[in-house]
């Protein structure tokens, strides 16, 4: 009986706080994306050759955890199959946040572009806890003839 009560509290709590956190995070992502869109992140491996660029590795990493409600839902979905929708939103946020962190680093170097952008994901928790790392990385293209070290140190 008490156990059932705990379960319901965790489930409802997971849902309410998970939803609130997700909404807040999405709002922040959308706002920051509008700002960072000025810096293109390109998947191409062939950088522009119109002028000299310094190149510097930039990356943004996010470890995102599931809440009780999402984990419970994913368990139910695993029985019937289909889209694990609770994790779709979770990973969407993780990817976009990782990309933003990468761009924010590139912007600090006054990069014009980030090229050869890739994502890596890995599971960082085992057992019943679901947590994923999403890592976005690429080559920041920093225009100019100045020494790279002075560009980086002034950033």
């Amino acid at each position, binding site marked *: *009986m008490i156990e059932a009560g705990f*379960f319901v509290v965790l489930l409802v709590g997971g*849902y309410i706080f998970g*939803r609130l956190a997700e909404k807040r995070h999405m709002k922040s992502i*959308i706002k920051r*994306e*509008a700002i960072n*869109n000025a*810096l*293109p*992140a*390109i998947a191409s491996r062939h950088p*522009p050759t*119109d002028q000299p660029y310094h190149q510097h590795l930039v990356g943004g990493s996010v470890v995102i955890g599931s809440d*009780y*409600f999402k*984990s*419970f*839902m*994913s*368990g*139910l*979905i*695993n*029985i*019937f199959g289909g*889209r694990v*929708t*609770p994790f*779709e*939103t979770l990973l*969407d946020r993780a990817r976009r946040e990782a990309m933003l962190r990468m761009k924010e680093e590139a912007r600090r170097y006054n990069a014009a*572009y980030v090229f050869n952008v890739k994502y890596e994901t890995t599971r960082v928790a085992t057992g*019943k806890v679901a947590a994923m790392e999403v890592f976005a990385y690429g080559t920041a293209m920093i225009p100019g003839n100045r020494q790279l070290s002075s560009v980086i140190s002034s950033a």
Partner: protein
Amino acid sequence: MHYENRQPPEGINVTKEHPLRQFVRLAIAATVLMVLVVGVLQFSGGWLAKRIPFSFEQRVMRGMEVDFSGEVDAPELTAYLNDLAQRLIKELPMEDGMDVIVHYNPDDTFNAFATVGGNLQFYRGLLVQMPNENALAMVMAHEISHVMHRDPVAGLGGGVASMLAMMMLTGNAGTGMAGDVLTRTGVLTSIQFTRRMEMAADNEALPAVYGLYGHVEGAGTLFELVAQEHGGSGDLAPVWLERFASTHPLDSDRVEAITARAAAQGWPVSGEMTPLPEEFFDWLEESAN
């Protein structure tokens, strides 16, 4: 070359279905599935297991050489218990070829149970609380009725089948907490079957007690003792929930059922109590040392 990132439209990676709606849909589907699977398997597994000849059960149990006695030799006590069982069998509509063997275990557990092959196990913890033979006869008749109804083997058959199904449904990687909750749903479903078995055994046992003693006084003693032993439920659960979530019928329900049955049949609810043999508690004492 010109490079730019355009902002993709919002929500293309996200389902339109509200999570709560999806939750309700899946939870209902999973519960129905679990109840159906366990219900069907309990029923069919039990039905199939009952087709196994009783003699086969006995043979298997003999072959397994299970030690029921807990390594204690209490010949007089065991003989008395078996004698009581035989007297009760005469009052019960037991099929030919069926029989029971009563085993005594000196453990302090407050329990008695029937298992496959007509083997009954009585613990010292229960026997020591018996005020008279009438109370003991009710317990004994109840356990013999389980054997008659083939409940141990049906429980085993249905139980194994539904356990396997539950493991397959929820045991695979990924169901996690949802799997735990669903397993409980399955257990709750199977409990509904065992509780029915208990009620049926009570119903069968009461006429035997009446047949042996000419009245049914003392038949409810066991359940009063059980209630004491548990010290009341102490739980905050309402009665209907407690009833639904118990493997056995509630003690109060059982006493009530006995009284109602006796009244309906015109069986006297009071009469002379038959004492236990004088040496009964000495036997228990000796076996404990």
